């Protein structure tokens, strides 16, 4: 329980720091100190500056605010959709189940990159960067359900043969109630695992999408574009402070894992 409380405290601290970025950040995230490009950490710049002289610490705070709100939201959306699809597949008849699983396989295999490119093409060029990134994460959430849906469906199929489910059916429980009351709560470990995997996955996807022009546009910072600084792998040993966003991401993901344990771990 101490671990759980500590994790929750750390998460709360990071969330509050991110939300209070306007107050805590020593300078605007887009201010360029062109006389101090690529500076090392100092009292003036806690995490140094980037190649354009922008304060990394300020950009980290603002980037955390953006990413910490959007990535979990997208992960929650994808996880919810995967639960819905998994349950729908299980609740349908044999052909319905096969149909849903086939659609799931299709969604897993298609080059969705082109849909993302098409959506970007349809959006106006003078769109606020924040709106553009919200749309990107929403799309990731809408498309990211397929891997988990398959795993959840397999879990549901296994649960359908459990004694308690058989008893519930025998006592006349309707399908919808069976799913909601008896099966869904037992899927929580899988759903939690899925959510926990998707949060960093979406952040990294946002970074990769930046290579195709689908990420967060200048000058808005995000964990994705901060992580892109690591692409120059050979520069990292001489600039270890570049790893701070990664460390923060690991801390957040780790705390998410610890802060919401299942009953079995909490017991």
């Amino acid at each position, binding site marked *: 329980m101490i671990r759980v409380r500590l994790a929750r405290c750390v998460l709360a601290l990071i969330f509050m720091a991110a939300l209070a970025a306007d107050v805590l950040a020593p300078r605007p995230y887009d201010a360029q100190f062109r006389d101090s490009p690529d500076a090392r950490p100092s009292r003036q710049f806690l995490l140094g500056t980037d*190649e354009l002289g922008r304060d990394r610490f300020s950009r980290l705070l603002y980037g955390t605010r953006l990413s910490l709100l959007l990535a979990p939201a997208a992960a929650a959306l994808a996880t919810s959709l995967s639960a819905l699809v998994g349950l729908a597949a299980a609740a349908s008849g044999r052909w319905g189940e096969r149909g849903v699983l086939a659609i799931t396989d299709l969604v897993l295999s298609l080059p969705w990159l082109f849909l993302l*490119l098409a959506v*970007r093409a349809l959006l106006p060029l003078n769109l606020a960067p924040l709106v553009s990134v919200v749309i990107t994460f929403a799309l990731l959430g809408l498309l990211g359900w397929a891997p988990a849906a398959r795993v959840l469906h397999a879990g549901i199929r296994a649960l359908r043969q459990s004694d308690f489910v058989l008893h519930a059916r025998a006592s006349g429980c309707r399908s919808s109630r069976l799913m909601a009351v008896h099966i869904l709560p037992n899927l929580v470990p899988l759903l939690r695992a899925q959510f926990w995997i998707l949060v960093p996955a979406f952040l990294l996807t946002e970074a990769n999408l930046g*290579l*195709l*022009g689908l990420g967060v*546009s200048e000058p808005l910072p995000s964990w994705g574009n901060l992580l892109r600084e690591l692409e120059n792998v050979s520069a990292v040993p001489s600039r270890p402070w570049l790893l701070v966003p990664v460390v923060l991401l690991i801390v957040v993901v780790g705390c998410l894992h610890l802060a919401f344990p299942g009953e079995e771990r909490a017991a």
Partner: protein
Amino acid sequence: MKRLLPLLVACALSLAGGEIPNGRELRACLRSQPKTFDPALVADDASETIRYLTGGVLIRVNRVTQALEPELAVSWKVSGGGRTIRFRLREGVAFSDGSPFTATDVAFTFQRLMSPEIHSPTADSFRSAPGAVRSAVENDHQVALTFPAPIAGLERLFDQVAIVRSGSNAVLGPFQVAENKPGAYIRLARNPHYWKKDAQGRRLPYVDSIRLDIQQNRQLELLKLERHQLDLVSALDPEQFQELSTALPGWARDAGPALEPEVLWFNQVARAPIAEYRKAWFRSANFRRAISEAIHRDDLCRLVFHGHARPAVGPVSPANRFWCNARLKPHPYDPVSAAHRLAQDGFHKDGESLRDRDGRVVEFSLITNSGNRARERMAALIQSDLRAIGIRLNVVTLDFPSLIERITRSFDYEASLLGMINTDLDPNSQMNVWLSSADQHQWNPNQKTPATPWEAEIDRLMRLQASTLENEKRRTYFDRVQEIAREQEPFIYLIYKDTLVAVSPALRNVQPSVLRPELLWNAEWLWLAQ
């Protein structure tokens, strides 16, 4: 001979030191798999490198002196008002399979190159007007080519034409393709019948082979270089240059400004699906000049390119010694002057924002290609510079095909930041950019009649330089084109970046050039010391 002298002296000095060229394999990288080995169809950089190393040409442009040199042709004469060129060919030259090189091969090469189904930059460079190219083989070593219309700078174009033999893959260059593992590497072996010899009578090339790994990832390329698995890297980015200068001092070299400038331009297409009031802004020369003066070019050079770039003034970089109008200077960074120019057009500051005469906030988007870190940083700096004068710039990075679609088909963009393609020294190769009726006239292509008097004047000057044979006169016309471009700023020229290369100290006779292929242009003379 005078042009070869520095190379021969370098060669002699290295040999005098007791070093003897002794075969071995030169190792370098290509950034992508060549799309074709057919020299007539070459259109990408990787294929062009292969063509350069394997193809024999009649006339070669020396990449360092930029002067013309005889290769397979010992002499030539242009006549008929620039329509005919007569070559006297080098005797005793053979293809890589031992078959003799004759005038018939030249005639065949050009008949094939000029056939209607061949569409490539090489072929199109010779298509000055509709009509067939006539070739007259006078004897085994004399051939005349007659074009339907005069071609300005005709001789230079032969640098791109590799002579081939009908029904054969044999080549006349120093190397031939020995092994091709798609996606992995290409090995070029020496051509045993290559005609060139050094002063000691040794047949060139000095190296036995060149291995070109297909390596798109620049970091891996640099890693290979640092591990001595490569002997040279042709294009380093500025961060890599800094890193290499520390890790392996003496390996990294700055060859000076490249030919291609980075430019920003505004969409002035009448039918573009953008707001009319924005089109009105972009059409104003005052507006464009103000934007140009508000951009801090020195900061672009310093912060993005770490000093390995210089502010640009026009389409021709100082690397192009003959055609660069050296009298022109870049617009200085002057936000006060920029504000003054904007005020002349009715723009005014309202708090932090600039508004036009109708009260609209001055805001527009700038598209550039994603994945190019230098351009993304330049866009971020420009965004900050324009914010200082109250303009809100939205930077939008797009993947390359999406970007090209907007600037060439849908015209659904407002401003664009890209590099100009400038592989040829002669401005005649830029006709399709400067003529208002051309489809590469980026800011407003395919005009039925010139939209502005200055575009009409540029049309006149470009046509004059294309129909004149004397280079000095042509230069006068093109100088004026550069002056108009500087006044009107249809392209806002930002910077010329430097050509940064890396060379192993073991490599002899290497002379980095800003013209491609930067380090392999004299590949037959290169060799590796022990």
